[in-house]
């Protein structure tokens, strides 16, 4: 009799624990929604807009090579060059998205978020340094004037 009861109560305990864990997970995800940062925005449009803004501003002014390629009189067919370049850019962003999804499956969320955060801060510092160098042209002889 007791040998029949014991496994049952154990199972019940396990069930209770599971419910508790689920509730904790629910709380954590609710907290996440509350903390919604631009790239955690709920709607498709918001995710599109924040990604667009981030990438657009980061790439702006960094397309001089491509512009030179498009303008090169060598080919005489800027339309074809533009289509080829656009396809390449779209493919490169697809590679980036797939790489991100692959990492998301591979790593724990908090690990990936910390890594992504460190990467973003590093990119921000680098981008900021570039922008400041562009705004303040390197003129080593300026203090002498």
């Amino acid at each position, binding site marked *: 009799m007791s040998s029949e009861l014991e496994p049952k109560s154990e199972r019940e305990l396990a069930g209770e624990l599971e419910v508790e864990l689920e509730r904790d997970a629910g709380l954590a995800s609710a907290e*996440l929604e509350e903390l919604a940062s631009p790239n955690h925005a709920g709607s498709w449009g918001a*995710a599109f807009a924040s990604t667009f803004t981030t990438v657009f501003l980061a790439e*702006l002014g960094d397309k001089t090579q*491509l512009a030179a390629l498009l303008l090169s009189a060598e080919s005489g067919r800027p339309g074809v060059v533009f289509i080829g370049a656009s396809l390449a850019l*779209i493919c490169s962003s697809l590679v980036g998205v797939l790489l991100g999804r692959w990492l998301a499956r591979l790593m724990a969320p908090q690990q990936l978020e910390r890594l992504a*955060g460190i990467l973003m801060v*590093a990119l921000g510092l680098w981008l900021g340094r570039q922008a400041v160098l562009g705004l303040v042209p390197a003129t080593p002889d300026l203090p002498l004037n």
Partner: protein
Amino acid sequence: MTLALLASTFVTVFLAELGDKTQLAIVSISGTSTRPGAVFAGSSAALVLASLLGAAAGGSLSAVIPTNALQLAASVGFLVIGVQLIRRSGKLESADQLAD
């Protein structure tokens, strides 16, 4: 002839973009977002439009719009998102420890 030009442009630009800072940003946005489709559409549109603008301005985009100032604003945005992600990862970790 057209195909050869198309292919050579594709390969040149694709290889140049691999491992670029923009792609790293896309990887981190995609990895931490639940909407990969929106991230893909947004980044593709931004990349194509930025290159179109660059070409239309004849490679001297900085003469038309203040690209450096905009990039400085973008870098501040990157820093804010990065700090938010790091803080959130800390909160997630403490939530995990509470569950244990």
